[in-house]
C-alpha cells in the first residue's frame, strides 16, 4: 500500500508534505510549551532553584545576620561530626527509618493475613484506616495526652496493676523515639494493611490450592508462594515508609514539644532548630543536604531492587 502511494507522489509533493509535517510539528511543540509552561515554571522557581541555593548556602559562612557572602569550603560539613547533636540526630533518624519500615509492615501484614478470612472484614478495615484520615498534627496532639504523665496510657497501666504510675514517656530519652514511632505505626498501619490486602487479592489461587493438595503447611505456602508474589507490594510500602522515616517532622515537633533534647530526635528536627532557631543558616543547610543525599541514595537503591523484583516475577 505504502509503496504504491509513494510511487504516485512526485518528489516535489513529498518534500512539501514533509515540510508541512515539520511545520505542524513545530506548531504543536509551541502549543505544547504553553501547556507545560505553568508546571515547569512553578517547579523550577519554587522547588529546584531552592535546592540549588540550599547546596550553595551550605558552603557559606552565613549565620544570623552575616556571612552570606563568605565562602566556608567544607567547614560546615566538617562541623557536623565535631558537634555532639548531629550524631545523636543521625542515630535517631536511623532508628526512625528502621522502625517506620519494619513495624507498619509487620503489623500491617499480620492484620492483612488475619482479616482476610474473617466476618465484618470491611468494618475492621475501615476502623484501622480511620487514623490515617486525621492530620498528623492532630494525631500528635492527641497522643501527646495519651503519653502524658496523667494520660491514657499511664491510667491504663495503673488501672491494670492497681498501683499509681506516672511515667513520662515523652520526657525520657530512652522511651521518646519508640513512643513516637508507635504513634506513627498507629497512623500508617491502616494504609499499609489496605495496600497489602490488595496485593494479597491479586495473588492467583491455583498455586496455593495445588500446594495445599500436595500437603504443604500454611507457613510453607506463605514462605514459598505468597511472600514472593507479595514482594512488589511490600517494596512499594517500604519505599513510602523509608521516605517518611527519614523526614518525619510533624509528629516529633508536636509530641516532643516539652522534651529538652527534642532537637536531636531526627535530622529533620535538628535542621529546623539549627536554621530557624539558632540562625545557623549555612550549617542547617548542610544538614539538609546530608539528609537529602541519604534519602535519594536509599530511595534509588530501593527503586533498583524493585525493578529487579518485578522483572523476576514477569
Amino acid at each position, binding site marked *: 500500500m505504502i509503496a504504491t502511494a509513494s510511487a504516485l507522489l512526485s518528489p516535489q509533493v513529498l518534500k512539501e508534505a514533509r515540510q508541512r509535517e515539520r511545520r505542524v510539528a513545530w506548531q*504543536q*511543540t509551541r*502549543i*505544547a*510549551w504553553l*501547556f*507545560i509552561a*505553568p*508546571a*515547569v515554571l*512553578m*517547579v523550577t522557581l*519554587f*522547588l529546584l*532553584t*531552592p*535546592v540549588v*541555593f*540550599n547546596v550553595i*548556602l551550605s558552603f557559606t559562612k552565613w549565620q544570623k545576620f552575616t556571612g552570606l557572602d563568605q565562602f566556608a569550603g567544607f567547614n560546615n560539613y566538617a562541623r557536623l561530626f565535631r558537634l555532639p547533636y548531629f550524631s545523636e540526630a543521625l542515630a535517631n533518624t536511623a532508628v526512625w527509618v528502621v522502625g517506620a519500615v519494619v513495624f507498619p509492615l509487620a503489623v500491617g501484614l499480620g492484620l492483612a493475613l*488475619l482479616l482476610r*478470612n474473617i466476618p465484618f472484614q470491611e468494618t*475492621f478495615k475501615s*476502623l484501622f484506616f*480511620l*487514623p490515617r*484520615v*486525621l*492530620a498528623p*498534627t*492532630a494525631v500528635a*496532639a*492527641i497522643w*501527646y*495526652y495519651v503519653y*502524658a504523665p496523667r494520660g*491514657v496510657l499511664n491510667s491504663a497501666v495503673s488501672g491494670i496493676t492497681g498501683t499509681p504510675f506516672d511515667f513520662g514517656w515523652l520526657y525520657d530519652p530512652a522511651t521518646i523515639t519508640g513512643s513516637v514511632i508507635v504513634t506513627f505505626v*498507629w497512623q500508617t498501619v491502616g*494504609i499499609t494493611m*489496605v*495496600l497489602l490486602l490488595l496485593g494479597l487479592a491479586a495473588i492467583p489461587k491455583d498455586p496455593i490450592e495445588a500446594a495445599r*493438595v500436595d500437603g504443604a503447611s500454611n507457613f510453607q505456602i506463605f514462605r514459598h508462594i505468597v511472600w514472593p508474589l507479595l514482594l512488589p*507490594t511490600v517494596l512499594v*510500602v517500604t519505599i513510602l515508609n523509608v*521516605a517518611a522515616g527519614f*523526614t518525619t*517532622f*510533624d509528629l516529633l*515537633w*508536636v509530641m516532643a514539644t516539652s522534651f529538652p533534647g527534642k532537637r536531636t530526635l531526627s535530622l*529533620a528536627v535538628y535542621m529546623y532548630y539549627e*536554621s*530557624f532557631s539558632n540562625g545557623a*543558616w549555612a550549617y*542547617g*543547610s548542610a544538614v*539538609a543536604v546530608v539528609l*537529602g543525599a541519604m*534519602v535519594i541514595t536509599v*530511595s534509588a537503591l530501593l527503586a533498583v531492587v524493585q525493578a529487579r523484583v518485578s522483572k523476576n516475577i514477569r
Partner: protein
Amino acid sequence: MAVDITDKAFISGLIAKEKRTQRQGGRWLVLPILALTIAYLTPLYYLFVTIFKTSEEYAKKGVLELPDSLAPLADNVVQAWTIANLGQAAMNSFSYALVGAVLSVSFAAAAAYGMTRLHLLGSNGWFMLIFTGTLFPFQMYLVPLLFGYQRLGLVNTWFGMLLVYVAICIPFPLLVLRNSFSSITREVDEAARIEGASEWRVFTSMIVPNAMGPLIALFLLQFTFIWNDLLFSSILANGIEVRSIMVALQSLQGTYSTLGPNVVITATLISSIPTVLLFIALRKYFMAGLQLGTK
C-alpha cells in the same frame, strides 16, 4: 497420589472443606483482632470523651471516664475557635487547600497533556525536570524559600504561601496523569483534531472527562496534603492572619499551655473535620488515590 481435577464432586468437596476451615479459623481469629482493635481505638475513644469535658472535670476525673454531660462541647468549641483564632486559620487552610489543589492538578494535567498528546521536543527531559521535584526532602527547600520570600516581600502573605503549595503539589499528579493520559486511546483526540478542534478544546472536552477518576483522586490527595501542612506554613506564613490551621492548632498546644487538654483535643477534632468529611463522601476516589501512589 493421582488426583483427577476434572472430577466435579472432588473439587466441590475440596471447596467446602476449605470454606469450613476458613470459617473455623475465622471464629478463632475474631478474639485477638477484637482485642487489638479495642487497643487501637482507645485514643479515638479518649478523643470523644474528652471533647465533652470541662477543664475542671478533666483535671478531677480519670481520663477515660465518661463525661457528666454533653453540654461542655459547645464551650470547648468556642474556646478553641476564638483563643487561637482557629476560625481564621481554618478559612486560610481551606482556601490554600482548595485553590492550591485545583491549580496544581490543573497545571499538572495541562503539562501531562502537552507531554503525552502533543508533539513536544524533549518531552522526557521536561518530565524528568519536574519529576526531580519529588526527590528532595522538604528540608532542602526551607531556608532558601524563606530567604527569597523575605527579599520579595512574600513572607506572611496568602499569595506567597499558595505559590509554594501549588509548586509542591505539581510533580506527583503529573507522574500519575502522564500514565493515565497515555492509556486513553489516540483516536479520541485525532478525530477531534481533524474536525478542527483547538488543542485547548481537545484537552478540556476529550482528555479531561476521560480521566475524571484520577483527577478527583489527585485533587483529594493534594487537598489533604495542603490542609495537613504544618512545616511550610510554620516557616513561611505564621502570622496570625495567614497561618494554616495546623500552625494554629500547634500554637494552641504550645503557647497557651495553660489551656485544658479538653480544648486542645476539641481543636484537633475541628481541624480534622474537612478531610474526614471528604474521605467519607468520596471514599471510592480516596482509595483509588492511595493506589495511585503505589504505581
